[in-house]
């Protein structure tokens, strides 16, 4: 089990940022490196004002030549299951990858807290990634070491960095839009 955490500061009030992260992902996708598209699969609005949302992410990273054939394009994506609180202060999420879905358990929360005297937001992204060791046994011996290293890098840097890029892209999009209450 590996923990990861990322704090991003933004010069927009929490509700605006949270609403952007919830509702503007499709528009934000082009601004993200190696993300082909983000599309809402289902959305259920709860009676209390909360929302359950599933987004599909499709990515197109530059893969090393040695992975050709091993990783196919249909594996490069995941479903993002999110449960938003009615006040938009908390999003609880779970990732369902298209690759080794049974072996990978990735879940966490995103909190949107007021900062800068209410004029800004601290977006705190926290999660856990658990990879079933049994799944590793299906990987050829020679690949286990690089695979573990890749997972470490994914947790330590890539996931937090992508979250940072995502909320920054949302913030940039908000700059172009008139202020309104979600």
């Amino acid at each position, binding site marked *: 089990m590996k923990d990861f955490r990322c704090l991003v*500061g933004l010069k927009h009030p929490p509700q605006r940022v949270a609403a952007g992260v919830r509702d503007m992902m499709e528009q934000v996708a082009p601004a993200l490196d190696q993300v082909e598209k983000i599309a809402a699969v289902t959305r259920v609005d709860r009676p209390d004002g909360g929302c359950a949302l599933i987004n599909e992410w499709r990515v197109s990273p530059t893969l*090393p*030549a040695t992975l050709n054939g091993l990783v196919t394009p249909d594996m490069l994506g995941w479903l993002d299951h999110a449960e938003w609180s009615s006040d938009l202060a908390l999003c609880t999420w779970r990732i369902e990858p298209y690759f080794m879905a049974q072996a990978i358990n990735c879940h966490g929360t995103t909190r949107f807290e007021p900062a*800068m005297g209410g004029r800004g937001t601290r977006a705190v992204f926290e999660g856990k990634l658990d990879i079933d060791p049994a799944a590793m046994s299906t990987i050829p*011996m*020679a690949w286990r*070491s*690089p695979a573990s290293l890749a997972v470490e890098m994914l947790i*330590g*840097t890539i996931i937090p960095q992508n979250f940072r890029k995502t909320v920054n892209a949302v913030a940039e999009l908000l700059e172009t839009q008139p202020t309104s209450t979600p």
Partner: protein
Amino acid sequence: MPQALAVIAHEPGASGPDLLDRALAQGDLREAIGQRISTALERSGACSAVVVPALDAFAAGSPTATDPALVEHLLELLFELGVTEASVGSTRGTASLWLENRDVFMVADLLGYRYETPSGRPYDVIDLSEDLSPNVFGEDGPLARTDLSRAWLEADLRLVFSANRTDDDDGYALCLSTLLSVLPQADKDYHYRHRRDAGEVISALLGAAPVHFAFIDAMVSSHGEGAARAPSPLLTDTIIAASDPALADYLGAMKMGLDPFVSRPAAPSLRRARPTPQTRILGALEPYPGWVNVSPALLASTAARRASLAGDRSIRPVLQQVDRDIFPFKDPANDWLNKTLSGLAGAGGDGALLTLANIWLGEMGKAAETYGVMIDKDALRRREAPINIDPAKLRPADYNGLAAELLGQAALLRGVPADADGVRWRFDDGAILFDGARRIAQPFEDFTAAVEIHRTIQYMNDYIGGQALATRRDKQGRVTRQVERNLYLPQPNYTAIGGGVAIDVTKIETIEYTPRRQRMFWKTVKSDNDSAIADDGVVTFEALGEDTLVTIWGRQHFRLPPIWAAIDQGLDPAMKRALVSQAYGQFFNRTFANLEAVSEGRDVRIGKPWSDAPEGEPLPVERLSGFVRKLQSEGRLDIPAALKGAVRANAEVKPLRIDADGFRHFDAAAFSAPTTTKSPLRSAMRDLRHAARVDAGTAE
């Protein structure tokens, strides 16, 4: 408030806000602040105040930052006295290049600023790199053509509130250092410490926008060898308040037991604000009990390290202790290096290891510089050196006597035979008088249109930077009087090996124009680094038939570094003459070639320019990461494959069989295949070699 005033308020156990109130009450500072506010209110009905605190901390509660509660207490007081609009101002610093969440608003938030005073009055946090007033510093000086925050420039009250900390660059970092965060460029180290002289920068900033009141938060200080890298808190229960930031720093350094002038950024401003009999200083000046300063060895080695721009910029992210939860690293390489190495140079250490690393980096920088001077001049960094005399203090007589004085000396070469390069020269009181001429096949009008005579010195051989300021022009707009500072590579170049420094000379110049002749006279009036006793000259462009004759006369007397001075003393006279002939022959050949090139529209400057981008140049680690990413994207550096190969290489290979004698038999093919680790590395090395050949011009 006519006289300078400073108060040192100290009481063990007292709260910061109490001591701040006491400091302001003791010396009429509160009244002085109130007076300024009243004047502004009478003038415009409003009064704005900007407080610049130390925000360059890397963890909440760090003693290297000003306590936000104290800043908010000061803001409260300002509101009480009538300020209508108060802000906390700063800009992004160098750390924003390698850490996340380092914009002004987020840093303020994460360090504890609440955007409202204790009584609930809202204040703003403003980024002083936004809404800039253009070209505030004019065309000359260390901040020539630099913009400055309009909010800071137009504030009725400009205040600085520093933390109290030791610093391994400058001994201490107080109000004057904190003022660098007023300037707009993000990479402060690159733009205001490496590229320019920090002392001159701060002095120019104070000249354009003086600070009205300065404070030092010495309640909990950061002392010790770790300085801002690895802060070590010490309760010092003191607030220093002053009418001048230099005076505050003067006293702050004395309280640390330091010579205030040890600080490079502070020294020029301190010289202008030395306490006089009229200065009122209230409070005790004895050093803080238990205070530990940065050792002289670490200070000196850090200064040596700055000789290597790349080395200095690389090592700072590695050494800084950081709360990664709030300020994560942008580059995983820096993150890993910092995790691995920052502890080695931490507060607990004696700094010896860092001192050694600094010296090593400094020597690497010096070696690269020497290599550049002798072999690859375009690899050198151009020098930015502002005019360092006050042109307003020059009298007409200083200019008027130049021509007669220099032409009189030029006549001393009459009768001297020219050497093989066509150069005439002789010794004169340790100096060398010399002249040389070249006929250039270009009509006088065309040549002088292309080569402005007042810029001739900038086209001379080995010119590496400086600044020129026209002090008078004729009716046609041509420069007739000028002040100029020039820096040349060490002369002769080989002296760079033994500690030779750049020739740094400041000159006054006059220029004459006639239809068939133009002539410039120059005389050295200052050499900031004592590298020259004389560097005077005359350059003449005159029409000669369809061509232009260029003549240069000079009188030069440069100081040699000790080792070369000793060698020079023992030189055989014939050898010395040969060396001088060779040096001046080379100078003339290259200078005339440069002038011809300029007349043909070619750029002759040596060295590479500084970047004007706010972030300076990419950090060395970013260049390396970028290079690796490029190789990866081209499929030439396949890290998984390399790792796989490494794993395979180390893996235990199963024998095909074990014979009766116990010998193990393996499949030869498993060992003969080349490992995939070598190929990408070879490819990377091949690319580097190719890039070097392209840089050297031997490949395309």
